[in-house]
């Protein structure tokens, strides 16, 4: 029985949505605003801030760093996710629960704790901070997400599928190549996408662990104190928003494919 929502609830929902969207409506407003000051009233349409981004060398370097870190972190986390998910789904071993707890723990720790503790280790070892220190931090926080996504894929997959492949004469490696990999691939792609997105936007750990080569969020942070740089930052933010939405849509697409493939439920409308 689908009834219409009571008017009080509906008006709350509308107000709440305005609250949620308030900041980001401002983003395109000021990104295209022809004024170097971020305030109302608006001055007119311009795309010069976007053009200006093209020439910002420091921003390009920061972007490059962020991209490298994001790619490497998401790949490593996904590999960890595959190993962990497979071990969880198919094996029993001593310490299964505590080990799982350790790997998932970063989900429940404030990022500053992770960042600070890694910083301490780096200082003690005498390691200079660089891209790799940030990557380590990111892998720690992304891996729990990879594990969740891939555990779902592995758990959904019927155990008998691997046995059936062997029964039909395939080798273990052939089974991996022809059965497991195709079924897990959408999950792998989802994991890579979400890891990439998380890493790209991550600030606190990068802030503590970045050396001379800043990531994009760290760069943005530095720019926020200079009023003249702000419209450019708005433009950058807008671009990042659009990019994130595209990635999100891709992630959703692959997640649905993963679900459909591995559960392989029989369709009821066919006889």
């Amino acid at each position: 029985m689908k009834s219409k929502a009571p008017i009080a609830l509906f008006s709350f929902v509308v107000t709440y949505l305005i609250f949620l969207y308030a900041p980001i409506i401002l983003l395109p407003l000021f990104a295209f605003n022809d004024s170097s000051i971020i305030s109302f009233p608006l001055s007119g349409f311009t795309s010069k801030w976007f053009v200006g981004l093209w020439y910002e060398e420091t921003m390009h370097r920061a972007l490059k760093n962020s991209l490298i870190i994001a790619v490497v972190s998401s790949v490593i986390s996904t590999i960890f996710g595959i190993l962990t998910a497979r071990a969880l789904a198919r094996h029993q071993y001593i310490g299964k629960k505590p080990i799982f707890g350790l790997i998932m723990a970063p989900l429940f720790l404030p990022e500053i704790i992770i960042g600070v503790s890694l910083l301490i280790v780096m200082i003690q070892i005498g390691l200079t901070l660089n891209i790799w220190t940030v990557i380590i931090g990111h892998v720690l926080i992304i891996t729990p997400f990879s594990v969740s996504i891939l555990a779902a894929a592995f758990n959904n997959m019927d155990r008998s599928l691997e046995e059936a492949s062997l029964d039909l004469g395939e080798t273990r490696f052939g089974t991996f190549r022809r059965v497991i990999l195709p079924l897990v691939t959408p999950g792998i792609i989802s994991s890579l996408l979400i890891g990439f997105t998380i890493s790209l936007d991550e600030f606190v750990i990068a802030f503590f662990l970045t050396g001379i080569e800043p990531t994009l969020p760290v760069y943005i942070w530095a720019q926020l104190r200079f009023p003249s740089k702000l419209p450019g930052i708005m433009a950058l933010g807008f671009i990042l928003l659009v990019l994130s939405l595209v990635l999100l849509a891709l992630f959703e697409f692959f997640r649905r494919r993963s679900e459909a493939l591995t559960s392989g439920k029989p369709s009821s409308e066919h006889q």
Partner: protein
Amino acid sequence: MTASRKLLLKIKNSLPGWRLIGGPFLFGFLLLLTPLFLMVALSLWTQNYLDLDRTITLNNYREIWSHPVYTFLIKRSVLISLSVTLITVLLAFPMAYFISFYGGKRKALWLFLITIPFWTSYLLRIFLWKIILGYNGVVNSGLQSLNLIEEPLSFILYNANAVVIALAHAWAPFAILPIFVALERVDRTMLEAAKDLGDNAIRRFIRVTLPLSMPGIISAALIVFIPTIGDYVTPRLVGGTDGLMVANMIQVQFAKANNAPLGAALAITSLMIVVIIALAFLFFNRRYLRRQV
């Protein structure tokens, strides 16, 4: 089979699993657990200008608990986190309720709509709140042009209020989703049964829906509360001096003040407080956490 033989067999059977999980586990052990222990160790040492005195002492902790600078900051951080949690969860619940009970076929779309604002950079979002709440910001310009106020409101920025507002916004989807999932699991036929037994809409909500969705509410509360204490960006951007939180002080100790041991002690202290509050919260709500019927 003897006990030691049983153990050997268990170890032998564990090998295939260990081979797989070895890498991730080692990574977590070396780079999460060990650093955390090191941080605890560091908090027990003392920084003498450029030298690190490694004698074990609780001085850092004594310093924290005896100086109002720190205790006040910790208290404020806890209060802000609790307020943020309360407000976020309170606001999230009706939204999640709406999507679950009135979303119909478009539930996924509604959820997607909720998350879109949060695919912008976190930094930028908080910064934009500065614009909204500022002296010449959206709220003030708007209220002034509507002639609702004469002077711009100054209590909405550069203090704890701004931090609470900004964080309540930032954590919104993280609270909505778990509550939504829990509400989805509420068996609609139970509500029909309650109606059949004479309860009106409000009583049905209080007696059936609310208790059954408690696990989701508890999850949402923990998801918001635990990381919020350690938030660095928001207090820094919109907190002014009155809205700074413990994470800002931790950062100061590691950077300018060059007192890493004190920073570590602050971090451990905050973590302990968070864990205690979270456990207490779980304990008092334990009857909702028993397995669902």
